[in-house]
Structures are given as C-alpha cells and as structure tokens.
C-alpha cells in the first residue's frame, strides 16, 4: 500500500529523484490518501510502479558500485546472523566507504537502496540507524533528521520489544552498545538544540510547538526501562552473584534473557540510565539504578571498552556530586589504569579518540577531587595529572584563589547537562518571556552548586599548611598568624575537620550508595578547649612496589629477548668471510667480525 501511494505522488515529478527527501515526501503525502474509484488507481499504479522503478534506478545509478556491493553483502550477513561478517561490515566496511564517498554528504537514503535488500524493513531500520548516526557525527542534522532519527529509533525498539517473542536478530556487542549510546546522545543533542530558542526559524518554531512528545524524557526512559525489564538483566546479574546454576538462571531470565542481543541491550540500558539521570542532574538515582551492577574488570560486560569507560566516567562524576571524593578518586584511578594498559591494543580502533577524550576529562576530574581531598595516590595517574593539569592543580590547592581553576576544569570535564523540559514553544507569550529572561544553563547551575561547596572549604588549604608545622598550637596564636578573627578561625577548623571525613564505599560492599565514614586526610587535629593538637600520619618508604614493578619490567625485557628470532647465520658468516679476506677493513666493524665468527664456529 505505501509503495503505491508513494508512486502516485511521484508521477507528478520528473524522474530525477535522487536529491529529493523521500522521507518528507511520504510524510506529507500520507495525509491525503483519498481515492475516487479503484479502476484508474490500478492503472495508474501499474504505470507508476514502472516510473518509480525508473526513478529509483536513476537514484541507485548514482550510488557507487562498491557501496552497492557493500550494502548487498552487509544485508546478507545480517540475514545470516553472521556475527563475524556483520562485525567486519560494521566496524571497517562502513567507515572505509564513509571516508571514501560520504565524508561530507549523507549516505543514500534508505528508500533508494531498498531494492538492493529486497525492501527488508528490518535491515532498512538498521541502515537508517547508521545513516543518522553518520549525519550527527559528520554533518549538521536539520530538524527533519532529528525527528526522523527519533522515529527510526522508536521503530527499532518497537521491533525489538513488541514483536511476537524475541526477535531472531543477532548483532555484535559493539553495535548494540552504539545503538543505546547514540540514542542517548541524540536525545541529549536534541534537548540542547531545543533549548536555544533564538536561533530557530519560523518553520522550526511551528514544528517544535507541535512536537512535545519527540525525544521527551519519558519516552527515552521508557525505552531503557523496557529493555531492562524485558531482558531481566537485573535478575540475571543477581542470580549470577548468588552463584546459581545455568538451569536456574535460564528459569529466572525467561524467554528474552538468554538471548545475547537482549541481555547486552539490557545491561547497556542500565548504563544508559546512569547516563541519562546524570545528564538530568539526578546523581543519586543515577547510582541507584546501578545498584546490582558490580564494577570489576573481569565481568563479560566489560568487553565493550567504550561502555566500560563510560560507566566509570559517570559513576565517578556522580560521586563528585555526592561529595564522595575518595570514591570518585578510586573510580577514576581504576579506569585510567585500565585505559593505560589497554592503550597498546586500541590504537587502531575507531573509538580510540573518543576513549582518549573521556580519559582526559577524567584526569581533570581526578585533579579536582585530589585538590579537595588530598591523599596519597597512584603514581602513574598522579604523574599524568601533573603533566596535563599541574598548573590548575597548584591553583586549586590554594583555596579561594583557585576557584577559576575549579570552574575551568569542571566545565571542561562535566557531562553535557540538559533541561528535562522544552521551552514553551506552544505558547508565544510565554516563549517571548523565555527569550527575554532565559533560564540559567544547566551546566552553569550545577557548576554554581559545586563551587558553593568548594568555597565552603576554601580556608582548608591555608589552615592545613600552618598546622603541618606544629604539634600543638594555641588557637589565638594561630589566628594571629592568619590575621583572622579567632572565633571565625575556630569555625574554619571545624570545616577542615569535616572536609577530612567522607562517606566511602568499603570494599565489596554492594550498591554504589552504600558506604561508611572514613578519614581521608593524613593530617588530623583536635581542639582541647583552645589548644589545637596536631597529629600527622606518614607513610614509610615503599620499596616493594618499586621492586615488583622493576622485576616485572626485567621479565618483559627478558621475554622479548628470549622470544626474538636468532640472527640468521649465513649473513654474518659471509660478512665474517669478506672481513677476514680483507684485512684492511676499518676497525669499526671489528666487533661484527668477532661476533660473526663466533656464530660460524658454532
């Protein structure tokens, strides 16, 4: 039916269709599908079918042959559920052809390539997923792209969630992660774009006034929660932690849970929720939805590196907003070390850049945490931080004067916050009021709250530097040194005390919101009426770590030497011969001669 309608409309156009937005055309045509009688319609339909074929062939003819071959091959791989082939097409084929043919333009519209894939609707949805992702990452999406990418996502999730039972589709884990990741990215991107009222055209204003449901927070959460529930991923994780047998787990996770596609989408949706809640400023709920997940690097869910890195970034950031700096530090150290170790394997991955960028933001966040909660930390990480953010770190460690440095790093490294609600596009008066007096941007609001906390503990670094010099000191004397009012100074000491205590997760405690009060500082003090007594904990020299690291290093050197091929005998032998035959050889080669002759002897 839709084929016929499309055709009817196209009969009015000339045949050169390849630059027409078919998506739009179908959309606007669908509203006046009235017919007078059946007879001329059939005749016309036959005629149009031919014309459409011609038009499509014209458009298809514009598509380069390697792209056509790729699409046919890609489609076949998806039909066969052939994961290795899909992975190759997805991870290298698509990107290679993008570089070659579509670096600055869109891929062909799904409707144009439809004949190549026998009009396979499922494949076309997947194709559009890639098509729009390319538009978002390489080009500037217009309002139609934004609306249509939302509709396509809905179709995809509708197919996955509301088909008759689990769908027989298999996709590589990386792609499944990218689907969820891109879904949230487009949502976030839309919300930020939507909040900028001034730059909208008349047409965009009209469309937005009528589109409150497009990319709404509820619809996005609905998708993520549905995937979590359908896959029973939380039940699966709990059953695994309880050490249940495969059969028991199969019983628990039901019809969808055992399918890798649903299980992975379920897990990625939990991480998706962590991200969405963080973007909306609900840091408690963000960590609460993670409560069953255990972060360790042995879990099968860590196979998708991008997901792994994202998870730690948002968990760490939420801990900062919960003012649990030791937990944030631990989270960042763990993932940054992981990234350092992974680096050698990932240089060729197309995600390498993205991971590196996130890592750099985490170094910045780490610097913030370490300035607010100084502690002895991992050598690898702190040396990189000194290298990249040494200047800011020095400023942040000096209290009030470091506020601009906190601001700079926070804005650089924080998530791209967004508002949950659109500006009042449906009401012109309210919209004008919104333009005249625009609300504070979400990132600025969160920054202000964070800086208020930073300011509250601004006196701490100065106090700390003084207390470090004494074992006991009268409060009056200290306030004279600081040129401060004694009572105010004593109150600041209480702030310092509180800043040196934090809730922190005790090892193996389940749930990210759990934790116990711990002391985070090596410098402690107590006030006895008006006498400040100070105690400092020091750490003895650490030899063992150094020896272990260097032993391991020596082993690697040894292994490399041991495993490298022996030099090929004939060559040095010839050289040795020539050298002995020519006694006038320069002394430089003397060493080679000696070595070569040993070899010949052996």
């Amino acid at each position, binding site marked *: 039916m839709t084929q016929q309608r499309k055709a009817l409309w196209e009969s009015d156009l000339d045949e050169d269709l390849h630059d027409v937005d078919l998506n739009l055309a179908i959309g606007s045509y669908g509203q006046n599908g009235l017919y007078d009688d059946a007879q001329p319609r059939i005749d016309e339909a036959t005629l149009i079918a031919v014309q459409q074929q011609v038009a499509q062939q014209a458009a298809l003819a514009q598509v380069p042959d390697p792209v056509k071959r790729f699409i046919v091959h890609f489609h076949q791989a998806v039909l066969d559920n052939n994961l290795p082939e899909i992975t190759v097409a997805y991870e290298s084929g698509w990107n290679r052809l993008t570089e070659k043919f579509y670096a600055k333009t869109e891929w062909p519209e799904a409707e144009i390539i439809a004949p190549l894939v026998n009009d396979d609707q499922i494949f076309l949805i997947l194709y559009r997923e890639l098509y729009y992702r390319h538009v978002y990452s390489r080009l500037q999406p217009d309002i139609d792209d934004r609306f249509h990418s939302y509709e396509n996502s809905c179709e995809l999730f509708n197919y996955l969630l509301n088909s008759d039972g689990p769908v027989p589709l298999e996709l590589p884990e990386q792609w499944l992660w990218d689907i969820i990741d891109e879904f949230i990215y487009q949502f976030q991107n839309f919300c930020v774009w939507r909040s900028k009222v001034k730059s909208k055209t008349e047409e965009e204003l009209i469309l937005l006034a009528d589109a409150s449901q497009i990319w709404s927070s509820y619809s996005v959460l609905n998708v993520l929660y549905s995937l979590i529930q359908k896959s029973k991923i939380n039940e699966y994780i709990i059953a695994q932690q309880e050490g249940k047998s495969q059969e028991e787990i199969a019983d628990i996770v039901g019809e969808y849970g055992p399918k890798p596609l649903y299980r992975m989408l379920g897990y990625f949706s939990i991480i998706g929720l962590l991200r969405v809640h963080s973007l909306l400023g609900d840091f408690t709920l963000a960590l609460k939805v993670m409560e069953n997940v255990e972060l360790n690097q042995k879990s099968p869910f860590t196979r998708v590196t991008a997901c792994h890195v994202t998870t730690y970034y948002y968990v760490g950031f939420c801990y900062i907003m919960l003012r649990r700096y030791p937990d944030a530090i631990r989270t960042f150290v763990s993932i940054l070390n992981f990234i350092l170790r992974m680096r050698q394997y990932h240089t060729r991955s197309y995600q390498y850049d993205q991971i590196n960028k996130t890592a750099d933001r985490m170094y910045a966040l780490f610097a913030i945490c370490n300035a607010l909660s100084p502690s002895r930390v991992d050598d690898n990480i702190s040396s990189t931080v000194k290298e990249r953010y040494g200047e800011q770190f020095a400023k942040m460690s000096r209290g009030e004067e470091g506020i601009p440095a906190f601001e700079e790093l926070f804005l650089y490294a924080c998530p791209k916050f967004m*508002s949950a609600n659109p500006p009042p596009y449906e009401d012109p008066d309210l919209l004008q009021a919104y333009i005249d007096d625009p609300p504070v941007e979400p990132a600025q609001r969160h920054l202000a*709250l964070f800086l208020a906390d930073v300011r509250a503990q601004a006196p701490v670094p100065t106090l700390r530097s003084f207390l470090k010099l004494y074992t006991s000191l009268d409060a009056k004397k200290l306030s004279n040194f600081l040129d401060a009012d004694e009572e105010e100074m004593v109150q600041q000491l209480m702030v310092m005390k509180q800043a040196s205590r934090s809730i922190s997760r005790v090892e193996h405690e389940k749930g990210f919101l759990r934790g116990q009060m711990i002391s985070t500082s090596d410098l402690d003090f*107590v006030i006895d009426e008006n006498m400040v007594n100070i105690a400092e904990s020091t750490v003895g020299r650490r030899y063992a770590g150094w020896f272990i690291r260097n032993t391991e290093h020596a082993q690697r050197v040894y292994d490399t030497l041991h495993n490298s091929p022996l030099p090929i005998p004939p060559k040095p032998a010839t050289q040795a011969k020539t050298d002995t035959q020519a006694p006038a050889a320069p002394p430089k080669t003397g060493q080679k001669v000696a070595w070569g002759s040993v070899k010949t002897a052996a």
Partner: protein
Amino acid sequence: MLTASAWATPPTRTELIESLVSGVDRYNPSNVGILEDYLYHQIRSEEYDCLANLAILKLYQFNPDLYNPDVVINILIKALTALPFPDFNLCISLLDERPPNANPDEPDPLPTLLPILSSLHNLLQSCRFPAFWTLYRSDKAESLRDNYTVECVGFEDAVRNVVVHAVKAAFQRIGGERLGSYLNLSGDDLTAYVAKLGWSVNDATGVVTVPPNPDNQIESTVVQENIQLPQLVKVIAHAQVATVQV
C-alpha cells in the same frame, strides 16, 4: 549518621514508599500524592527520607504541572539539616528553572525563600553557626519561620544536631560560652541540652568535655607497607615458567 545505608534506606520507610523509590512506579505522576503525604509525615514526626523526597522533585522535574512550592520548600528545610551531607544541593540540582509564574493571584513563595534557604545552608555548611542563628532569627527569615519551619517538628534541634556533629569531631573540650553560641542556647537551657547529650560540664570553669569518639582521638602513625602474596603471584608464576623452559 555513620553509614550511608541508613540514608539510602531509612528504617522508617514503609514498603509502599520503598516500592515507589526503587521501582518504575516512581515516574507515575499519580503517585505524587503518596510521596507528598509521606513528606508531611516526615515533617511531623522528625523522620527523614532523602530518596523519597528526591522522587517528588523528579516527578516535578518531568511534570511541571505538578509543581507545588510548599512541598519544595519543606523538602529543602528537611535537607538543610542533613548536613554535612550534600542533600540540599542534590535537591536543588533537580529544580529546573521554573517557567514564569502563570497565576499572579497565587504568588510562588520559592523565588523569595530560596536565596534565604541557600544562605542558611551556606552558613551551616561553613560551620558559621552563630551567623546562622542570627540570620535565622532575623526579619529576613520571618516568613520562612512563620510559614514553614514552625510546622517542621524539631527543626531547631535538627540544626543543633548538625552543630553537635561538627563539635564532636573537632573538640575534646569546648568553652561553655562558645558552645552556647553554636547551639543558640544559654543558661539552664544549655545545661539541660548538654546533660541530654551526656556531656559533662566543669561547674567552676563552664568548660564542657566531649566524650571520646573516633574523630576526636588523634594519633600519629607511620604506615608501613604490607605486601600480600597475591601481589607477588605474577613474579613467582613467571619465574616458575621460566625455570621450566630452561
């Protein structure tokens, strides 16, 4: 509060509330009444449940029509006395910018009270307790006191708990006058309050002794490194493999 589990799941939380806080039903706008009733229960009975209150703010965030300024103010008052924990800011984080007030007959009290609440929070957070009480008792805060905190049972004692938390950690002994200025108490009231805490007073000097607790006992230590076998496993295992190869 020494553990975060009591904060994440207060023992006073009912099953119904737990199901709203932890389940998908938290997004259902028709449940906002249950959560608001629970907030007023907290106000009356000196209970506190941060996550349940955040769930109300979440519903307001997604459904601006539900927004009720009185509820928001009460949530912020409860969160204020959760210091030194960051509940107050966690709540503020969820307050998206409100659209301009559509109904001039019912002015929204939040825009005028929010700066005062934020200042109070800031003073309390900076342990500037005497300044907190001065602002709280001032004319500026009159409408906050008369319309809101008066309904919140035990509000002033909840503030004093924040003070006690800070004093307990930083002091072994503290002058009676200083403590009184922190607690906004003097004379017999102060004596009675200190006695209720189980702290002792030297009658001659008025100096109050704070009982020992993990935070006001300090000790210089030298942390020595402690190598566990697992750290050496790689080295040992490798040495063995190397030996076999040879």
